[in-house]
């Protein structure tokens, strides 16, 4: 499970907020709402395009790194226990690899949430 509100949730909540009003009919003080709705719809659109194979690859890479099997959610739970215990401190063999994995996953999530904040290549 992702920790962030999903595409379906964002679209539904945005629609509820907007109701049956048209954007151009909104008074000035609802402009902030309108901007939020536009942002939510853009994020939802990007999240809906997520290729499930990409997430599957993230899972496979993490499973190899941790040398355990299981669903992504359970792997992540195990991962945070190990990070807290110090198992992936700089002295560990997997330290650099884990940073790379976290960075790649974060770039993917940022690409959905706010692509303007992605680092310039």
């Amino acid at each position, binding site marked *: 499970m992702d920790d962030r509100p999903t595409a379906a949730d964002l679209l539904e909540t945005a629609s509820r907020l907007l109701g049956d009003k048209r954007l151009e009919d909104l008074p000035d003080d609802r402009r902030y709402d309108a901007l939020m709705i536009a942002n939510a719809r853009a994020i939802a659109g990007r999240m809906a395009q997520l290729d499930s194979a990409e997430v599957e690859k993230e899972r496979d890479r993490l499973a190899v790194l941790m040398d355990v099997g299981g669903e992504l959610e359970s792997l992540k739970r195990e991962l945070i226990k190990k990070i*807290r215990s110090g198992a992936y401190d700089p002295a560990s063999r997997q330290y650099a690899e884990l940073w790379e994995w976290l960075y790649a996953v974060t770039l993917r999530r940022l690409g959905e949430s706010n692509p303007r904040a992605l680092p310039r290549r």
Partner: protein
Amino acid sequence: MGLKPEEACERLRKYLVEVAGCAVEVSGIQRLSGGAIQENWTVQVNVADGEWAGDHQLVLRKDAASGVAASHGREREFALLKAAHRAGVKVPEPCFLCDDPDVLGAPFFLMHQVRGEAAGHRLIKQGENTDLARELGRQLARIHKIVAPRDDLGFLGPPPMDPAAAAIERYRVDLDALGSPMPVLEWGLAWLQRQAPEPDPGGIVLCHRDYRTGNYMVADGKLTGILDWEFAGWGDFHEDIAWFCAKCWRFGASDFEAGGIAGRDPFYDGYCEESGRTIDPGRIAYWEVMAHVRWAVIAAQQAVRHLSGAEPSLELALTGHVVPELELEILNMTKEQSHG
């Protein structure tokens, strides 16, 4: 406030007559925007006689009807505001606290209204303002002159022996309560644990804990008041300086590292001149990582408030989408040389 404005005015008038011991007129009560935990209203008050004689444009701050916060909320905030005002900090001058919920439905306090603009994205559009940054440094130094023990701030509890360790512990508890694993924030906390500075008992002061662009008012380019005292507590003075300068609070004006309004130098200079303290750049860098972790934890909590159904809100849902940007910054700040 669950009451009609005329009824609220009348109840407030009767209360103020008792407090002031003379004739009082109350008029023009109006709700201000913002505030999920508290309601803010403006109100005009005329006091006929005594210490408070004259016309006053006031703000009434009261716990929201939904009652998310304990009734202690406004009482504690009033005590903090009074302590800051007495220390010479530019805050809206606090007037009266009413802890009797029967007057307006919940405890409330009155403070003088300060004029100006607070919205961060509008303030940074006004361009570089080194005088403002210097003044904000000075004001922060005044806040930090408040140190424990203080009978009037007893509700803050004892100061932490090790502020960094206490913060790491608190955010781990917060992450556990979220129910969804957040490995990057755990990574950041592990770094913070490894890199924690030696505790410095002389550096423990009253921290505002939300001292940043967006939480102070500016009129004609000058500071008019420091707002939002509800997160204040005892901590390392570097924490507030780092929170102010952290990249996540520059509203996109990344080159102006002091809150998006100026470089660090005038802000640091104002702070050091007023406090006589020396700022340790290493500790600032450390607390800036902590600032990103803290903001990410809060943003994730906001998303959960929405997702749990406790408070369905598009604004809260979108706040959850701030997290990856903060996580990327945390990863960039915490990459160490591997020696495994």
